[in-house]
């Protein structure tokens, strides 16, 4: 199969695989060659593919910060309202009944972490209502494992196409895509 590629920014080479292990061995070979992968689309999370893209998530650290902010914010609010602003005598109990503030603090901290993390997820992964998205191959959320490359010179493209075919790609085609975000 010889495909004439024109070297343009929007031109992409798309390899479609039926099996996860074929995709992974293709990724390994492409990485050895030093070719840059634009993006990989899979029907479910595949750790090796995520690692191959060299991405790391700092979610747990962000969640810790949200939790810290949430916990101190809630505690301060409880102290302000119940102790400083308008102390009320409930059956002679101390107004600064610190241990009983802990329960509300724990629950609201969890709520803060959840809502803030979901918001962060939406911002960082760019997943939000009404988003305009680019999906190189519409079967990739069903049963296809799709790998996308930036098109290069004709010889490079042919080499890449051959490599993908050797690794068991069912289809290799080029397509003009809006910049992948």
């Amino acid at each position, binding site marked *: 199969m010889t495909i004439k590629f024109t070297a343009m920014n929007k031109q992409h080479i798309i390899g479609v695989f039926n099996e*996860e*292990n074929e995709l992974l061995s293709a990724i390994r070979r492409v990485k050895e060659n030093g070719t840059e992968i634009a993006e*990989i*689309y*899979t*029907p*479910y*999370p*595949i750790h*090796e*593919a*995520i690692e*191959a*893209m060299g*991405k*790391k*998530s700092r*979610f*747990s650290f962000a*969640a810790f910060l949200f939790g810290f902010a949430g916990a101190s914010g809630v505690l301060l*609010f*409880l102290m302000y*309202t*119940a102790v400083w*602003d*308008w102390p009320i005598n*409930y059956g002679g*109990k101390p107004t600064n*009944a610190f241990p*009983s503030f802990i*329960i*509300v603090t*724990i*629950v*609201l901290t*969890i*709520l803060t*972490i*959840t*809502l803030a*993390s*979901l918001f962060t*997820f*939406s911002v*960082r*992964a*760019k*997943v*939000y*209502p*009404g*988003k305009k*998205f*680019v*999906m190189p191959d*519409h*079967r990739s*959320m*069903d*049963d296809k494992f799709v790998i996308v490359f930036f098109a290069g010179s004709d010889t490079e493209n042919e080499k890449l196409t051959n490599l993908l075919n050797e690794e068991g790609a069912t289809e290799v085609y080029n397509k003009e895509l809006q910049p992948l975000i």
Partner: protein
Amino acid sequence: MYKTEVRGSLIHGNKNYHQISTDIIAPIDQPIPLWWKAAMGISLLALLYGIVAIYLTVTVGIGTWGVNNSVAWGWEIINFVWWIGIGHAGTAFSIFLLILRQKWRTSINRAAEAMTVVAVGCAALFPAIHMGRIWLAFFIFPYPNTRGPLWVNYNSPLFWDFIAISAYLLISASFWYFGMVPDFATIRDRTKSKVKKAVYGFFAFGWTGSTKEWLRYESLSYVLGGIAAVLVVSVHSIVSTDFASSVIPGWHTTIFPPYFVVGAIFSGFAMVMTLMIIIRKLYKFQDYVTDSHLNAIAKILVFISLIMGTAYATEIFIAWYSGSQYEFFTFFNNRITGDYAFEFWAMVICNAFIPQLFWSKKIRSNLTAAFIISIFINIGMWYERFNIIVTSLSKDYLPSSWTTYHPTWVEIGFYVGTLGMFVAGVLLFFKYIPMIAISEVKGILKATTPGNDHKIHSHE
């Protein structure tokens, strides 16, 4: 690591990825079946009865109920705790099994979480309306007001309860929704209907399945799983402090928080079993919800049943051993014997004895038997809440204020209404949402089916 040679395959029928999407999305594409319409009609009728009951309660007042000065908490709090208990399973199921990397959860977690969201919604109605003047319910929010500002009492377990349940509802609903986003994208990309493409496309939030999205999706699900596990334990512990921090005999015990949490997970898992057997039967999901899945739930149920039995025995033992005559009276004269002996023994038999039948492999694998036992557990857990609330309140320290309690038709209507709401909610879920987490099932397919390449999936 899941060993298929020991536990059998988790997905039967030699499926490929495309078949998994097709099978699970099928109920959404097919026309609405007759049984669905009939069940929806009945549940809407029940809901209507509930709406009439709520209307009467709100317009006339709590006087329409059978509660009185002694038994101030009747069916409403019984049903509230019962629903919250059922609502516990979904998140418990997803979260604990997610943290423990249990692959068998993937076929069940979606339905369990759906059940949670609807059940917690039903539960929240009861205390809200029990306040009496629901149009003043916003008083419970700590907001700057013109009455001082008079802030709420943070030492009150009733306020903790309000915070816990609102947070639980919000968090379980978002966790559930977040898990559905990739599956909505699958529907969006497959459907030929323009309406479905637009609607599911909107709810899919532009999901594409790129590594950038999956990376954050996975990290977020573990973060949420980790912190929501704390929430699951805390919510029902807080519900138990509504009772345990009072000085009523039978309530004032330190066993209450773990006892309530375990009881909630017990009733929730039983409801998961009931629901999964129904889903499997009606939608022919035997290949996804296999005997092995139901077997695992049955084993958990038999274990929790032993804990429940131990808790009942501990309560009775302490009532005698503490030497408190009030505790002794409550347990020995007003529960084990006396006016409410039937309710007590119904609780013990349904929760501690009947589930022991699950020790037998024959019964575990007989779906009809498992279904009936799961229903018995839910009835038993309802009686447990009846026992705790009504027996302790009906005969307290002053014999002159002893009284009995019977629900009125309005209270029964309120309960029937929430049952209708629950069934209607679950039916909508059957029809419009993929009942099984498609992407998660695809993720475990190769690792849990014999004859596939295990090595490449060793990233667990």
